[in-house]
C-alpha cells in the first residue's frame, strides 16, 4: 500500500520510523488533550461504549467538545454535523497545503491521509518539507512521494496511537480523574514547545504574531472561528512579508 512493492520496503519502513520518531516530542500534547476530551465526554453523560466510539472514530478533539453539549441538549442532527464541520474548517485550509504533496495518490488513499491529519502532524511534516517544494532532491518523483507519504504516516501513527492509548483509560477512569489540576495547561505548554522551532524566519514570526493577535481579538467568536480567522490573517501576513523580504529584481 502507498507505493510499489518489494525493493522500496526498507526505505518505506525507514521513512515511517523517521516520522514516528519526529512526532515523539508532540506526544505529550496529544496525550493531555486526549485525556481531557475523554474525561469531558463521560462527564457530559455519554455511556462508555459511545464515548469510546466517539473518541476513537471521530478523532477530532475540538469538534467533539463543541458538539457534545448540542447532542446532550437534543439538537437536530444537521446542526450537530454543521457545527463539527465549522470547527474543523482550519483543516480544510491544511488540506489545500497538503494537496500538492499527495495529489498522485488515488482518492481512497488521499482520504486516509486526510483523516489522519492533525495540527501537529501537519506542522512537523511541513517543517521537514518546506523549501524542497513538492519534489525532494534525489531519486525519482515517485520515490520521493512514497518516502514523503510514509514519513507522514509515521507522524500520523504517533498522533493516533497516543490519542487512542490515552482515550481508553481516560474514558474508563473518567469518574476518578479529577479535573482542574492543570492537565489542560500541560497540553498548552507542550504545544508551545512544539511550535517554537517552527517560528524561525521572518514570515513565520510575522504570521505567528498576527495569528496570535487575531485569536485574542476574535476570541468571542463561537465555534473556533477565531482560530480560522487567525489562520487566514496569519497566512496572509506571512505571504505579504515573504514578498517584501525578497530582493527586488533589477
Amino acid at each position, binding site marked *: 500500500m502507498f507505493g510499489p512493492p518489494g525493493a522500496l520496503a526498507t526505505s518505506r519502513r525507514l521513512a515511517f520510523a523517521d516520522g514516528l520518531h519526529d512526532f515523539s516530542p508532540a506526544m505529550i500534547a496529544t496525550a493531555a488533550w486526549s485525556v481531557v476530551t475523554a474525561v469531558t465526554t463521560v462527564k457530559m453523560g455519554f455511556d462508555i461504549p459511545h464515548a469510546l466510539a466517539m473518541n476513537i472514530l471521530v478523532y477530532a478533539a475540538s469538534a467533539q467538545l463543541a458538539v457534545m453539549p448540542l447532542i446532550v441538549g437534543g439538537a437536530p442532527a444537521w446542526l450537530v454535523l454543521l457545527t*463539527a464541520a465549522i470547527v474543523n474548517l482550519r483543516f480544510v485550509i491544511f488540506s489545500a497545503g497538503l494537496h500538492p504533496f499527495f495529489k498522485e495518490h488515488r482518492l481512497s488513499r488521499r482520504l486516509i491521509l486526510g483523516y489522519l491529519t492533525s*495540527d501537529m502532524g501537519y506542522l512537523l511534516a511541513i517543517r521537514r518539507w518546506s523549501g524542497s517544494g513538492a519534489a525532494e532532491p534525489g531519486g525519482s518523483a515517485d520515490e520521493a512521494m512514497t518516502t514523503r507519504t510514509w514519513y507522514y504516516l509515521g507522524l500520523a501513527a504517533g498522533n493516533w496511537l497516543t490519542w487512542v492509548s490515552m482515550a481508553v483509560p481516560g474514558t474508563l477512569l473518567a469518574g476518578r480523574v479529577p479535573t482542574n489540576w492543570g492537565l489542560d495547561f500541560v497540553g*498548552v505548554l507542550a504545544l508551545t514547545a512544539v511550535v517554537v522551532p517552527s517560528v524561525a524566519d521572518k514570515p513565520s514570526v510575522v504570521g505567528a504574531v498576527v495569528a496570535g493577535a487575531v485569536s485574542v481579538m476574535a476570541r468571542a467568536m463561537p465555534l473556533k472561528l477565531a482560530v480560522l480567522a487567525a489562520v487566514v490573517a496569519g497566512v496572509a501576513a506571512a505571504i505579504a512579508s515573504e514578498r517584501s523580504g525578497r530582493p527586488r529584481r533589477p
Partner: protein
Amino acid sequence: MTDLHLDLLIVGLTAVTIVTRSLFMIVGDRLLLPRRLQQGLRHAPVCALVALIVPQVLTSGADLDLSPLNPRLAAALVAATIMHYRRDMLSAMCAGMMVLFALRWLV
C-alpha cells in the same frame, strides 16, 4: 435520544472529520490555487497552533490578563524561551510548570 440515533451521529461526525480534512485533496485537481498562496499555506499550521495557545495563555474568563504575574503567561514565556535557546522539550515543560505552580502559590 435513542442509541441508534447516537450511533448514526457518530458515523456522521466521522464522515465530517474525513471530508473536512481531505476537502482540497478531493477537489484540488479541479481548483488550482495561485502559486504564492499555495506556498504561503505552509505557515497555516503555525498560525493555527498559535491561535489555539495564545487565548488560553492571555485570558482568564473573558478578560485579557497581560500582567507578567499572570501564571499562565509567565509559564508559557519561560517554556518558549527555554525551547528557543536549548531545544529541549522536557526542561522547557518542567520549567513552565514550576513557574505556573510557584506563581499560583505566591500570587
